[in-house]
């Protein structure tokens, strides 16, 4: 009995030493500008022209799988359900990953050359197009909403002018857009066909964003800022500053 108590005490002590505990099974969440993503037991990596799968059923031992040619200027990858949304400088590509090791291209949404991350929710993809010297596009800045319920017939159901969108994130009825030097936007997507503005903070710079459990994490030249959006309005919580 004494020994059992000793073991329990020891276990208790051990559990204290590891502050916060180990990461739980499963995958985490990346931003819209990511080139690495995990979906189920597969790690997907986009290079400048290709999509490479790694089997990570045994997470400690990634095994290279199929490498698919996507096209030119591949920039971002976003997983949603059994699909991958790949953002390139010429458009958005949707891949079916029902067979995870062999992503199959099922749809293409082409647009003018620009930088364009993409996120998805429900039957809708949200694509931002950005101008800039690195994006082969001098003028267009917009948010396009694309209905992909029919993969053979993608439909643009809305396009909204933006200033210089770098990254975006979606959570429920809210869409967040990092407008680079121009600030941070909160939009209402309750009706994806009619996107409405909620808030525009032009006092900060914002690149990529991750909305997660009522908290928005924002990357900016000043550092990593966090906001609460529990009330649909952004409340600043903290900034981990960049040291000059």
């Amino acid at each position, binding site marked *: 009995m004494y020994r059992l108590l000793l073991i329990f005490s020891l276990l208790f002590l051990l559990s204290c030493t590891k502050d916060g505990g180990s990461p739980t099974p499963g995958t*985490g969440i990346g931003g819209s500008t990511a080139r690495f993503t995990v979906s189920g037991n597969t790690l997907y990596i986009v290079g400048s022209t290709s999509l490479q799968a790694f089997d990570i059923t045994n997470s400690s031992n990634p095994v290279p799988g199929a490498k698919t040619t996507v096209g030119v200027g591949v920039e971002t990858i976003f997983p949603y359900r059994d699909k991958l949304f790949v953002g390139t400088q010429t458009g958005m590509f949707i891949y079916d990953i029902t067979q995870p090791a062999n992503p199959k291209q099922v749809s293409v949404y082409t647009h003018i050359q620009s930088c364009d991350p993409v996120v998805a929710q429900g039957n809708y993809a949200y694509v931002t197009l950005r101008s800039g010297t690195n994006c082969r596009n001098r003028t267009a800045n917009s948010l396009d909403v694309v209905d992909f319920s029919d993969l053979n017939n993608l439909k643009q159901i809305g396009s909204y002018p933006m200033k210089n969108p770098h990254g975006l994130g979606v959570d429920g009825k809210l869409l967040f857009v990092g407008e680079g030097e121009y600030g941070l936007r909160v939009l209402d997507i309750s009706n994806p066909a009619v996107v409405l503005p909620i808030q525009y903070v032009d006092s900060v710079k914002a690149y990529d964003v991750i909305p*997660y459990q009522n908290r928005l994490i924002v990357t900016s030249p000043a550092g990593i800022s966090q906001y609460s959006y529990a009330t649909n309005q952004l409340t600043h919580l903290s900034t981990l500053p960049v040291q000059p």
Partner: protein
Amino acid sequence: MHVYLRIPSLLLVWLLMDGCWRPAPPEPPTSGDIYRPVYAPAAAIRIVQTLPPQPLQNAGKIYIKDQYLFINEVGRGIHVVDNRNPAKPMQLSFISIPGNQELAIKDSILYADNVLDLVALNVANPANVRVVRRIENAFPYASYPLATNVRFECPDPTRGVIVRWEKAAIDNPQCFR
């Protein structure tokens, strides 16, 4: 028109048309950002180590896993942050990974690019991150910066492996894209 005049004029027309049809090669840009490669010896780039927290300098991509926030330091590695209290995030450690720009996590394994290699790191204990698998040459040699419409100092493989590109004031850089 006399036949002897007709042929030269036809030739002239051909020449003019030819001039219109041949696409002119793109001119090197004279403005725009200038980059230079940052080299590291081939042996040094495969050293991954856990360091005490480091200041953020050039924050890149971010990744959330449980209570942790991972922040890429462009070209250098990953800051591990305890984010249980988002009003007061606490830096726990810095994983030094030369050339690193990307990351994703499953379970307690973090996948990262390490210049040419893909590494799988066990981050269960952020103070002691271990390489559990390295896939060599998973990525191509970065012979140019990712940005387009830029000029840059041409890479010289004899000087080592390129771990990142940095903006620099260089006179008359010879490479561009």
